Protein backbone atom coordinates (compact mmCIF):
# COMPACT_ATOMS: atom_id res chain seq x y z
CA UNK A 1 0.00 0.00 0.00
CA UNK A 2 1.25 3.48 -0.68
CA UNK A 3 1.49 6.27 1.87
CA UNK A 4 -1.33 8.19 0.20
CA UNK A 5 -3.89 5.44 0.87
CA UNK A 6 -2.87 5.33 4.52
CA UNK A 7 -3.27 9.09 4.94
CA UNK A 8 -6.50 8.94 2.99
CA UNK A 9 -8.02 6.31 5.34
CA UNK A 10 -6.94 8.28 8.41
CA UNK A 11 -8.29 11.55 7.02
CA UNK A 12 -11.61 9.98 6.12
CA UNK A 13 -11.93 8.45 9.58
CA UNK A 14 -11.58 11.86 11.19
CA UNK A 15 -14.82 12.68 9.42
CA UNK A 16 -16.32 9.34 10.43
CA UNK A 17 -16.13 7.97 6.90
CA UNK A 18 -14.66 4.91 5.24
CA UNK A 19 -13.05 4.30 1.85
CA UNK A 20 -16.04 2.35 0.54
CA UNK A 21 -18.66 4.68 2.04
CA UNK A 22 -19.69 2.17 4.69
CA UNK A 23 -20.65 3.18 8.21
CA UNK A 24 -18.09 2.24 10.87
CA UNK A 25 -20.31 -0.62 12.04
CA UNK A 26 -21.46 -1.90 8.68
CA UNK A 27 -20.60 -5.19 6.99
CA UNK A 28 -19.73 -5.48 3.33
CA UNK A 29 -21.99 -7.57 1.10
CA UNK A 30 -22.06 -11.19 2.22
CA UNK A 31 -22.74 -14.01 -0.21
CA UNK A 32 -22.84 -17.64 0.76
CA UNK A 33 -22.95 -20.67 -1.50
CA UNK A 34 -22.95 -24.16 -0.07
CA UNK A 35 -22.44 -27.69 -1.35
CA UNK A 36 -20.03 -26.66 -4.05
CA UNK A 37 -17.45 -29.42 -3.64
CA UNK A 38 -18.89 -32.73 -4.72
CA UNK A 39 -16.42 -34.99 -2.94
CA UNK A 40 -16.57 -33.17 0.38
CA UNK A 41 -19.13 -34.03 3.06
CA UNK A 42 -19.79 -30.33 3.51
CA UNK A 43 -18.55 -27.20 1.77
CA UNK A 44 -19.19 -23.49 1.47
CA UNK A 45 -17.90 -20.55 -0.50
CA UNK A 46 -18.29 -17.19 1.22
CA UNK A 47 -17.56 -13.78 -0.18
CA UNK A 48 -17.39 -10.80 2.13
CA UNK A 49 -16.79 -7.82 -0.12
CA UNK A 50 -13.69 -8.88 -2.05
CA UNK A 51 -12.61 -11.40 0.56
CA UNK A 52 -13.36 -14.95 -0.53
CA UNK A 53 -13.05 -18.04 1.64
CA UNK A 54 -13.74 -21.65 0.72
CA UNK A 55 -14.24 -24.35 3.34
CA UNK A 56 -14.47 -28.06 2.86
CA UNK A 57 -15.27 -30.75 5.41
CA UNK A 58 -14.08 -34.31 5.05
CA UNK A 59 -15.20 -36.94 7.54
CA UNK A 60 -13.21 -40.13 7.98
CA UNK A 61 -12.71 -42.96 10.43
CA UNK A 62 -9.85 -42.51 12.83
CA UNK A 63 -8.58 -43.27 16.28
CA UNK A 64 -9.95 -41.27 19.21
CA UNK A 65 -7.74 -39.07 21.36
CA UNK A 66 -6.31 -41.05 24.30
CA UNK A 67 -8.02 -38.75 26.86
CA UNK A 68 -11.41 -38.97 25.11
CA UNK A 69 -11.80 -42.55 23.90
CA UNK A 70 -15.53 -42.26 23.20
CA UNK A 71 -15.64 -38.97 21.31
CA UNK A 72 -14.93 -37.88 17.73
CA UNK A 73 -12.48 -35.13 16.83
CA UNK A 74 -12.41 -31.86 14.98
CA UNK A 75 -9.25 -30.91 13.11
CA UNK A 76 -9.25 -27.39 11.69
CA UNK A 77 -6.64 -26.06 9.33
CA UNK A 78 -6.37 -22.88 7.32
CA UNK A 79 -4.35 -22.13 4.25
CA UNK A 80 -3.58 -18.66 2.97
CA UNK A 81 -3.08 -19.45 -0.71
CA UNK A 82 -0.53 -17.38 -2.66
CA UNK A 83 -3.27 -16.52 -5.16
CA UNK A 84 -5.18 -14.71 -2.39
CA UNK A 85 -2.65 -11.98 -1.79
CA UNK A 86 0.86 -10.93 -2.84
CA UNK A 87 1.80 -11.16 0.87
CA UNK A 88 1.16 -14.92 1.02
CA UNK A 89 3.75 -17.50 0.07
CA UNK A 90 3.79 -21.24 -0.44
CA UNK A 91 5.27 -23.31 2.35
CA UNK A 92 4.43 -24.29 5.92
CA UNK A 93 1.48 -22.49 7.56
CA UNK A 94 2.26 -18.91 8.55
CA UNK A 95 1.44 -17.59 12.05
CA UNK A 96 -1.57 -15.81 10.50
CA UNK A 97 -2.91 -19.08 9.07
CA UNK A 98 -2.42 -20.88 12.39
CA UNK A 99 -4.18 -18.08 14.27
CA UNK A 100 -7.12 -18.13 11.85
CA UNK A 101 -7.58 -21.90 12.17
CA UNK A 102 -7.22 -21.81 15.96
CA UNK A 103 -9.73 -19.02 16.49
CA UNK A 104 -12.34 -20.69 14.27
CA UNK A 105 -11.68 -24.04 15.95
CA UNK A 106 -12.02 -22.55 19.45
CA UNK A 107 -15.32 -20.87 18.63
CA UNK A 108 -16.86 -24.01 17.15
CA UNK A 109 -15.66 -26.12 20.08
CA UNK A 110 -16.77 -23.69 22.78
CA UNK A 111 -20.19 -23.21 21.22
CA UNK A 112 -20.62 -27.03 21.18
CA UNK A 113 -21.66 -26.96 17.53
CA UNK A 114 -20.59 -30.56 17.02
CA UNK A 115 -21.87 -33.28 19.33
CA UNK A 116 -18.58 -35.18 19.71
CA UNK A 117 -19.93 -38.20 21.64
CA UNK A 118 -22.31 -38.90 18.72
CA UNK A 119 -19.26 -39.38 16.47
CA UNK A 120 -18.26 -42.53 18.34
CA UNK A 121 -18.44 -45.66 16.14
CA UNK A 122 -16.97 -48.54 18.14
CA UNK A 123 -14.08 -49.05 20.52
CA UNK A 124 -10.96 -47.48 19.02
CA UNK A 125 -12.89 -45.98 16.11
CA UNK A 126 -14.49 -42.57 15.84
CA UNK A 127 -15.37 -40.11 13.09
CA UNK A 128 -12.81 -37.37 12.58
CA UNK A 129 -14.10 -34.12 11.15
CA UNK A 130 -11.49 -32.32 9.04
CA UNK A 131 -12.42 -28.71 8.49
CA UNK A 132 -10.18 -27.04 5.90
CA UNK A 133 -10.30 -23.32 5.29
CA UNK A 134 -8.86 -21.99 2.05
CA UNK A 135 -8.50 -18.27 1.58
CA UNK A 136 -9.02 -17.62 -2.14
CA UNK A 137 -8.88 -13.85 -2.02
CA UNK A 138 -7.76 -11.50 0.73
CA UNK A 139 -9.38 -8.15 1.35
CA UNK A 140 -9.45 -8.08 5.14
CA UNK A 141 -11.52 -9.77 7.83
CA UNK A 142 -10.67 -13.40 7.19
CA UNK A 143 -12.03 -14.37 10.60
CA UNK A 144 -15.68 -13.46 10.02
CA UNK A 145 -15.68 -14.89 6.49
CA UNK A 146 -14.11 -18.13 7.76
CA UNK A 147 -16.65 -18.43 10.57
CA UNK A 148 -19.52 -17.99 8.12
CA UNK A 149 -18.04 -20.51 5.67
CA UNK A 150 -17.24 -23.04 8.39
CA UNK A 151 -20.67 -22.79 9.99
CA UNK A 152 -22.46 -23.16 6.64
CA UNK A 153 -20.33 -26.18 5.71
CA UNK A 154 -20.94 -27.76 9.13
CA UNK A 155 -24.68 -27.14 9.08
CA UNK A 156 -24.93 -28.70 5.62
CA UNK A 157 -22.47 -31.51 6.36
CA UNK A 158 -23.32 -35.17 5.83
CA UNK A 159 -22.14 -38.04 8.00
CA UNK A 160 -21.02 -41.23 6.19
CA UNK A 161 -22.03 -44.71 7.36
CA UNK A 162 -19.69 -47.32 8.75
CA UNK A 163 -20.65 -50.91 7.96
CA UNK A 164 -18.51 -54.07 8.17
CA UNK A 165 -15.27 -52.13 8.40
CA UNK A 166 -16.07 -49.97 5.41
CA UNK A 167 -16.98 -46.32 5.05
CA UNK A 168 -20.09 -45.90 2.91
CA UNK A 169 -20.59 -42.46 1.40
CA UNK A 170 -24.01 -43.02 -0.12
CA UNK A 171 -27.39 -42.00 1.29
CA UNK A 172 -25.65 -40.11 4.03
CA UNK A 173 -27.51 -38.62 6.97
CA UNK A 174 -27.00 -35.06 8.09
CA UNK A 175 -24.36 -34.31 10.69
CA UNK A 176 -26.16 -32.70 13.57
CA UNK A 177 -25.07 -29.09 14.16
CA UNK A 178 -26.36 -28.01 17.57
CA UNK A 179 -25.55 -24.34 17.56
CA UNK A 180 -24.62 -21.41 15.38
CA UNK A 181 -21.56 -19.35 16.18
CA UNK A 182 -20.45 -16.27 14.28
CA UNK A 183 -17.70 -13.75 14.83
CA UNK A 184 -17.37 -9.99 14.55
CA UNK A 185 -13.95 -8.50 13.92
CA UNK A 186 -13.01 -4.91 14.66
CA UNK A 187 -9.92 -3.01 13.62
CA UNK A 188 -8.64 -0.17 15.76
CA UNK A 189 -7.48 2.79 13.72
CA UNK A 190 -6.71 5.90 15.73
CA UNK A 191 -9.41 5.95 18.38
CA UNK A 192 -12.06 4.31 16.24
CA UNK A 193 -13.15 0.69 16.09
CA UNK A 194 -14.20 -0.36 12.59
CA UNK A 195 -16.37 -3.40 12.01
CA UNK A 196 -15.40 -5.72 9.16
CA UNK A 197 -12.08 -4.09 8.19
CA UNK A 198 -11.06 -4.20 4.54
CA UNK A 199 -7.53 -5.16 3.45
CA UNK A 200 -6.45 -1.51 3.34
CA UNK A 201 -7.93 -0.86 6.78
CA UNK A 202 -6.17 -3.91 8.23
CA UNK A 203 -2.92 -2.56 6.86
CA UNK A 204 -3.39 0.72 8.73
CA UNK A 205 -4.89 -0.69 11.97
CA UNK A 206 -2.99 -0.65 15.25
CA UNK A 207 -4.92 -3.56 16.77
CA UNK A 208 -7.58 -6.11 16.02
CA UNK A 209 -10.21 -7.81 18.14
CA UNK A 210 -12.48 -10.68 17.18
CA UNK A 211 -15.48 -11.66 19.29
CA UNK A 212 -17.25 -14.95 18.50
CA UNK A 213 -20.65 -15.51 20.02
CA UNK A 214 -23.87 -17.45 19.69
CA UNK A 215 -27.31 -16.16 20.60
CA UNK A 216 -26.66 -15.96 24.32
CA UNK A 217 -22.98 -16.14 25.15
CA UNK A 218 -19.53 -15.09 24.11
CA UNK A 219 -17.70 -18.20 22.92
CA UNK A 220 -14.27 -16.88 21.97
CA UNK A 221 -12.33 -13.64 21.99
CA UNK A 222 -9.05 -13.01 20.26
CA UNK A 223 -7.12 -9.80 20.38
CA UNK A 224 -4.44 -9.81 17.74
CA UNK A 225 -1.95 -7.81 15.72
CA UNK A 226 -0.53 -5.83 18.68
CA UNK A 227 -1.61 -2.43 19.91
CA UNK A 228 -3.73 -1.77 22.96
CA UNK A 229 -7.44 -1.29 23.63
CA UNK A 230 -9.23 0.81 26.19
CA UNK A 231 -11.63 -1.07 28.45
CA UNK A 232 -14.49 0.95 26.95
CA UNK A 233 -13.43 -0.16 23.46
CA UNK A 234 -13.50 -3.82 24.47
CA UNK A 235 -16.96 -3.34 25.96
CA UNK A 236 -18.11 -1.66 22.75
CA UNK A 237 -16.78 -4.62 20.71
CA UNK A 238 -18.59 -7.13 22.94
CA UNK A 239 -21.92 -5.32 22.71
CA UNK A 240 -21.65 -4.56 18.99
CA UNK A 241 -20.79 -8.19 18.32
CA UNK A 242 -24.06 -9.35 19.90
CA UNK A 243 -26.00 -6.73 17.94
CA UNK A 244 -24.41 -7.55 14.58
CA UNK A 245 -24.36 -11.31 15.01
CA UNK A 246 -28.17 -11.30 14.73
CA UNK A 247 -27.86 -10.27 11.07
CA UNK A 248 -25.11 -12.83 10.46
CA UNK A 249 -27.23 -15.60 12.01
CA UNK A 250 -30.18 -14.58 9.81
CA UNK A 251 -28.03 -14.78 6.69
CA UNK A 252 -26.68 -18.16 7.80
CA UNK A 253 -30.11 -19.54 8.69
CA UNK A 254 -31.46 -18.50 5.31
CA UNK A 255 -28.65 -20.36 3.53
CA UNK A 256 -28.77 -23.39 5.78
CA UNK A 257 -32.52 -23.91 5.36
CA UNK A 258 -32.37 -23.63 1.55
Amino acid sequence: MNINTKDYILELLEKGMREDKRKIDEYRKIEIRSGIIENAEGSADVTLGDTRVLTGIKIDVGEPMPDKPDEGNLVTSAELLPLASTDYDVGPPSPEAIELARVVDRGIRSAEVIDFPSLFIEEGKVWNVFLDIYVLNYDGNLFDASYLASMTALAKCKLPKYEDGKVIREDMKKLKANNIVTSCTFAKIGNTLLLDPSGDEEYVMSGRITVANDEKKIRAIQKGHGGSFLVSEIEYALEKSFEKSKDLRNILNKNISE
Partner: protein
Amino acid sequence: MPIAISPRNNEILLLQMDGNLTIEEAKKAIEMVKEAGKEIHKAQVRAVKEGYEKILEKYGLI
Protein backbone atom coordinates in the same frame (compact mmCIF):
# COMPACT_ATOMS: atom_id res chain seq x y z
CA MET B 1 -9.61 -15.75 29.81
CA PRO B 2 -6.07 -14.41 30.11
CA ILE B 3 -5.92 -10.61 30.16
CA ALA B 4 -2.80 -8.45 30.21
CA ILE B 5 -3.21 -4.84 31.23
CA SER B 6 -0.90 -1.87 31.36
CA PRO B 7 -1.40 -0.69 34.97
CA ARG B 8 -0.35 2.89 34.20
CA ASN B 9 -3.13 3.66 31.74
CA ASN B 10 -5.49 0.66 32.12
CA GLU B 11 -5.14 -0.34 28.48
CA ILE B 12 -5.70 -3.95 27.50
CA LEU B 13 -2.63 -5.45 25.84
CA LEU B 14 -3.67 -9.08 25.57
CA LEU B 15 -7.08 -10.67 25.61
CA GLN B 16 -8.00 -14.19 24.75
CA MET B 17 -10.97 -16.24 25.74
CA ASP B 18 -12.81 -19.40 24.95
CA GLY B 19 -15.61 -21.23 26.69
CA ASN B 20 -18.80 -19.46 27.54
CA LEU B 21 -19.28 -16.12 29.22
CA THR B 22 -22.10 -13.61 29.24
CA ILE B 23 -21.28 -9.98 28.41
CA GLU B 24 -21.72 -9.09 32.09
CA GLU B 25 -19.27 -11.80 33.18
CA ALA B 26 -16.69 -10.69 30.62
CA LYS B 27 -17.05 -7.05 31.69
CA LYS B 28 -16.69 -8.05 35.35
CA ALA B 29 -13.51 -10.02 34.56
CA ILE B 30 -12.00 -6.96 32.86
CA GLU B 31 -13.00 -4.74 35.82
CA MET B 32 -11.29 -7.17 38.21
CA VAL B 33 -8.12 -7.10 36.12
CA LYS B 34 -7.92 -3.31 36.49
CA GLU B 35 -7.46 -3.70 40.26
CA ALA B 36 -5.48 -6.94 40.14
CA GLY B 37 -3.10 -5.45 37.56
CA LYS B 38 -2.21 -2.64 39.94
CA GLU B 39 -1.50 -5.12 42.76
CA ILE B 40 0.74 -7.22 40.53
CA HIS B 41 2.51 -4.10 39.34
CA LYS B 42 3.19 -3.06 42.96
CA ALA B 43 4.61 -6.52 43.69
CA GLN B 44 6.83 -6.32 40.60
CA VAL B 45 8.20 -2.91 41.61
CA ARG B 46 8.79 -4.18 45.15
CA ALA B 47 10.63 -7.27 43.87
CA VAL B 48 12.93 -5.19 41.64
CA LYS B 49 13.67 -2.72 44.45
CA GLU B 50 14.42 -5.46 46.97
CA GLY B 51 16.67 -7.24 44.49
CA TYR B 52 18.78 -4.15 43.88
CA GLU B 53 18.86 -3.25 47.58
CA LYS B 54 20.36 -6.66 48.32
CA ILE B 55 23.06 -6.11 45.71
CA LEU B 56 23.82 -2.62 47.01
CA GLU B 57 24.01 -3.96 50.57
CA LYS B 58 26.36 -6.76 49.48
CA TYR B 59 28.81 -4.25 48.09
CA GLY B 60 28.34 -1.92 51.05
CA LEU B 61 26.85 0.89 49.00
CA ILE B 62 23.93 1.56 51.37
